């Protein structure tokens, strides 16, 4: 690699490297079963999310200790729900951390899920919750 980069007059330290934390997954699941090493997930049929559901966030390339925060806002802008997940130890590197929580009271509608890491907003996605009797076939 160093031969290649020197041939192109590109320094190795200048190469693009993904080393900053970023959200690599934000999804709503019907069911999660987790033990110390495994996480089994069951997705909603046709992708139609219905209450109750699990909200799962995976943040990649995280270093040290910190706090992840998942906030759910109404489409109108009011904060509905907020959860904080402390994690990690100083000086250690984590290829990813997974946070998840169960939501049982969200009525059908459109929401915004916002992910913060150590106070900085990392990502935000819309979430649509369908009525319980929505077609699941």
């Amino acid at each position, binding site marked *: 690699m160093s031969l*290649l980069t020197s041939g192109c007059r590109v320094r190795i330290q200048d*190469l693009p*490297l*993904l*080393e900053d934390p970023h959200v690599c997954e934000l999804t709503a699941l019907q069911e999660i079963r987790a033990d110390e090493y495994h996480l089994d997930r069951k997705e909603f049929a046709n992708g139609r999310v219905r209450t109750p559901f699990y909200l799962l966030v995976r943040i990649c390339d995280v270093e040290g200790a910190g706090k992840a925060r998942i906030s759910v806002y109404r489409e109108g802008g009011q904060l509905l729900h907020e959860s904080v997940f402390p994690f990690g130890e100083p000086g250690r590197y984590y290829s990813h951390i997974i946070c998840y929580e169960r939501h049982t009271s969200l009525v059908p509608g459109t929401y915004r899920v916002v992910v913060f890491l150590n106070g900085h907003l990392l990502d935000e996605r819309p979430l649509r919750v369908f009525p319980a009797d929505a077609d699941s076939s």
Partner: protein
Amino acid sequence: MDRLRKLLCLSLFLFAARGLATTQSIQVSGRYFIYCDNLRIVFGSGDIVVQSGDVKLRGNVLYYDVSSLRGILYGVAPIESTNAAPASGDIVYFQGIPPRFHTESFGERITHKEDEGLRFQLRKPSLAEFKDYALYFEFREFSVDSRGKIRARTVIPYIMGVPSMPMRHFSVNRGSLEGRTVFYLEDLHYTRAEGLALDSRLRLHLRPFHGDFSLKAVERALFSLPGTPRGLLYSGQLTLRPGKADLLNMGVRGNTGDNSFSLTFSHANRVGIVEYDLSQQFSDRAGSDLFSELRARFALYPFKGFSPQFSFRYNWGRSISYSVSTPLRIKEKIKLNLGIERRILREGFESDQVDLLADFGFETRFFSLDSGFRLNRDILEETSRKNFSVQVPLTPIQLLEKNFSLAITPFYLFNSFPSSNGMETSSSPGIRLLIRSLGLRLPLGLELRPSLAVNHIWDGLREDMTDFQTDLALGRRIGNVDLAAEYGLASRFRSRGFWVEGTHARNLSFSGTFQFHDHINLRLRMILDNDLKPETLTWNGRIGLPWNLQFSSFVIYYIRGDRFQSVELFVEKVFKHKLKIQGGYSLALRKFFIKLLLV
């Protein structure tokens, strides 16, 4: 001194143009960016700075849509802009060059600043989605101009997931190609019929010339395949367009394999009430004479609904024809046309014929009428033929919520033609019926889809006959299985001598189709012969397997001959949306095979 002044002005102009060009782009720097042309989205992470004109935005995570020049930046620091009030937030939405922006902060409520109408959704692919494509780029900095062209710095292209040589500068997206000359490879594929074929395309925009050419290079000799060893097939068109209108069009098509070509020059325009088009075509093939034909058409539009036309065609030294027609349309309901056409042939034999024609038709709510009269005069043989036809289609009748339709068309034909017994005439009235249903529900969950066409004619008022075309499909769905029986019969009835004859237009067949989501699709079909004995069995199957593998099978078994006519069994997998590997058995090739295909 004068020359120095000119040089100074030119330098200033170039400097201003460069400055203008600089403001017409967005510069973005950070620690990591990834881009894939299939998604047309840039994802970035780590100390991101977006700068354009006097606007400077800072954040940690970026999604940027190159198609719409819109981006979302997360984790935003205070925004620097000389023309806007100080702003800050957790998210900034920005759009255009230089960007207009809108910020949002997430506390107990979401608070907005600046232009709230600027909030939008962007597709946010995961990193795995980017890396699933055959070609993607990782880089440290980039700039985007108003055409969507992305110039990146410190770039690593990834080809089929493998990093290739890093580059200091590279255009990872050429931007909008509208109005630009480009040459590109469209496809590369291999088949036994064509050999290795390379498809490419040239879009030419060199004012005043604009063209679009398709080129296909074929190589067979290298793979010991029969046919022309190699060749080039080309087709396309070139337009001379000095202003907004086309002055001259040229169409070209050729094949070096059989030394054939076709070249057509054409020009069309409208001047006042006169519309005209002229064309000259040349074509040739090895072993044949050059074909050359001149065509012209003039049309007048003196008032709405009336457009007399004159057409002329001259095949150099062989034939000439010209025609005049006067179509008249009154209130879009009544049509009338009178015309004359003359055709002179000098190709092997001589012929000189004149046609006089008159057409009349009208539409009402319940029926329409179309009639036509032709008088043909052979000037060399001094004979004449006449024919007249009229048909009156009644408005189709729809029943059972349009599931059942009945269309009735009475018609009449008259012919007068020369024979060895002098002039002969024939007069034939008739009626045409078309009965069709989209599906009738029967007991036991069966569904019947019948279609019946009846054509009755009193041929020359001497003999009458009735033609029937019957199609029947009977089906039932049980769970995920569709069962169907299909049959088609063409038959004729003559009342004289009570003669009935019929043939199987479509032999009786039974089929069963099993479909389970997109993973499994199986179809078995048995076709019976004319004596209602099983003749052929066909099988189509496609099953999705783990690891994105797919098993496909295609079998034709000839029952009466007790042998397989075709067997194709193979497993295939597509890599990175571009490369397909197939492996299996083919009876046509009589061997097992492994194929590598670009898709």
